[in-house]
């Protein structure tokens, strides 16, 4: 009897530090957020929020800039996932071949991952604003010299994808490297004797063997592209402006930044919170859908 009581005490004592902080920092704010999103919450101390039902959600969906932000976020996410994975897989193939100094290259490709998004955003802002025109002048190519990447909406999105790929491809590469090193060498050699060429080996052996890695890498790149905030804040801060359905919109104000700006710049905490909840729902649906689809594919392979 005493032992059981003691076990219970140990259970709660051991659980308490992690559980309490997790509840206070994640679960309770999550529930509060659901409630706040249906009120006129202002975050001002002492002002009691009043219930407004789905007003914030209606306001959000009738806002052109929100719909635009959604579209741009999807576009950015799609292109980033492709770009990061193509670059990462290419790097992984190269550094698992019989070449010299491959560990050095691995480390080099990985290093940008250590640089935080904010710091990285400033580095690339400088590159796009000053370095690219200078390189154009050096090469004598006027088109590059006069290219203002951060002044055109589509070029800016491309610039963001480039900066994000630079940061993240090295990490994703490491996951591919680990997977590639697990592909049995005998299998590749046997197929070579049977006369398989490079593409046949790639499509029929290597890619099916690293299918599990694809599930992980596409999940990670998808979620992290969709949530991107730091790089954008430092690199473009949402700009430049563009026209969408006769309204001025910020061409790189992706969802995470849009939520932040609605809450702080336009002082609308409740609607910012409502947008965050839609953000959460959409992210959950696409990430769970993606894992489900890839797992099914893995089995088929």
């Amino acid at each position, binding site marked *: 009897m005493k032992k059981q009581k003691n076990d219970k005490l140990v259970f709660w004592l051991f659980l308490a530090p992690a559980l309490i902080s997790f509840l206070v920092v994640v679960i309770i704010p999550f529930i509060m957020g659901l409630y706040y999103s249906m009120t006129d919450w202002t975050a001002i101390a002492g002002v009691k929020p009043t219930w407004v039902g789905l007003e914030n959600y209606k306001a959000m969906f009738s806002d052109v800039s929100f719909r635009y932000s959604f579209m741009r976020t999807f576009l950015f996410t799609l292109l980033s996932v492709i770009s990061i994975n193509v670059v990462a897989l290419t790097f992984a193939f190269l550094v698992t071949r019989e*070449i010299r100094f491959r560990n050095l290259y691995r480390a080099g490709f990985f290093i*940008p991952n250590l640089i935080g998004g904010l710091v990285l955003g400033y580095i690339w802002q400088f590159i796009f604003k000053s370095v690219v025109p200078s390189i154009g002048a050096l090469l004598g190519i006027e088109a590059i010299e006069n290219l203002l990447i951060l002044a055109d909406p589509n070029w800016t999105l491309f610039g963001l994808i480039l900066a994000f790929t630079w940061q993240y491809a090295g990490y994703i590469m490491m996951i591919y490297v680990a997977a590639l090193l697990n592909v049995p060498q005998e299998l590749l050699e046997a197929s070579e004797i049977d006369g398989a060429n490079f593409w046949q080996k790639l499509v029929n052996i290597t890619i099916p063997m690293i299918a599990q890695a694809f599930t992980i890498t596409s999940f990670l790149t998808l979620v992290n592209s969709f949530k991107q905030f730091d790089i954008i804040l430092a690199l473009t801060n949402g700009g430049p402006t563009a026209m969408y359905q006769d309204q001025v919109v910020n061409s790189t104000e992706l969802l995470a930044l849009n939520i932040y700006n609605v809450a702080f710049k336009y002082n609308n905490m409740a609607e910012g919170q409502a947008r965050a909840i839609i953000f959460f729902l959409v992210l959950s649906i696409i990430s769970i859908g993606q894992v489900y689809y890839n797992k099914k594919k893995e089995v088929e392979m």
Partner: protein
Amino acid sequence: MKTKKTITTIFLQIITIAFFLLTLFPFFIVVINSAKASLEIITDPIAFPTHWGQIFTNIKTIWSSPSIRYASSVYASVLITVLSLISIAVFSAMAAWVLVRTKTRTSTFVFLLFICGLIIPFQVVMFPLVALFRIINETIGISMLRTYHGMIFAYIGFGSPLAVFMFHGFIKSIPAELEEAALIDGCSKPQIFFRIIMPILKPIFVTICILNAIWIWNDFLLPSLVLGVGQEIQTIPLAIRAFAGSFVKKWDLIMTAVLMAAFPIVVGFIAGQKHIIKGMVAGSIK
């Protein structure tokens, strides 16, 4: 046949070197421009600096800049990162252990709650979190905003779901007989954990610390909400933000600040490269 293979290898070697140099190009830009004065950086951002000595002048400016407060920012970043890492790792291991070894409905429920935490993005909880921290201050008088303990507490909360999940998976594979034997020998439950289980968990410990270290060290949004930009306690990303905000277009100094911000973590990476890469890959696959 053999020459064909050598040619392919040489070709691959050249491509890899090209990609390698391209990847390091932004770092090269940062380094050369940290050694330029404000005029030189505008006229020619891709040339080598005329006086490398300028780098020390710039470093001195950043070091004594009142918005960067380099020494105190590095101190705050190190303190927050180290204490958060230790707390996340130890507390999550403790929680995961009792969750694995206690088979009740409560333990299943708590574990599922932690799993939910894995999929909740930061954006959904950030505004209410600040409100809740303020409420805690008003009702029980513990100031969570703009303090070290508030910041570290927040990191434990955000870091624990993944850590509990990873420890949980690992502890399940440790045979329970090991603990039963120790129990018969007269060990108490806490003794079993700290003397027997903790040493076995060492590899997962390393993985969790590395994953969280890179996240916490570079994190901007959470500290900007909890500590605030330009306040008393600031981490390195907050300092960079405060500086770049007030010195727009002083690129020579911004580049130096970026260099000094990246320096500690790049040195740390080079020192522990093998463990870091292994740890990060292990973390992603779990």
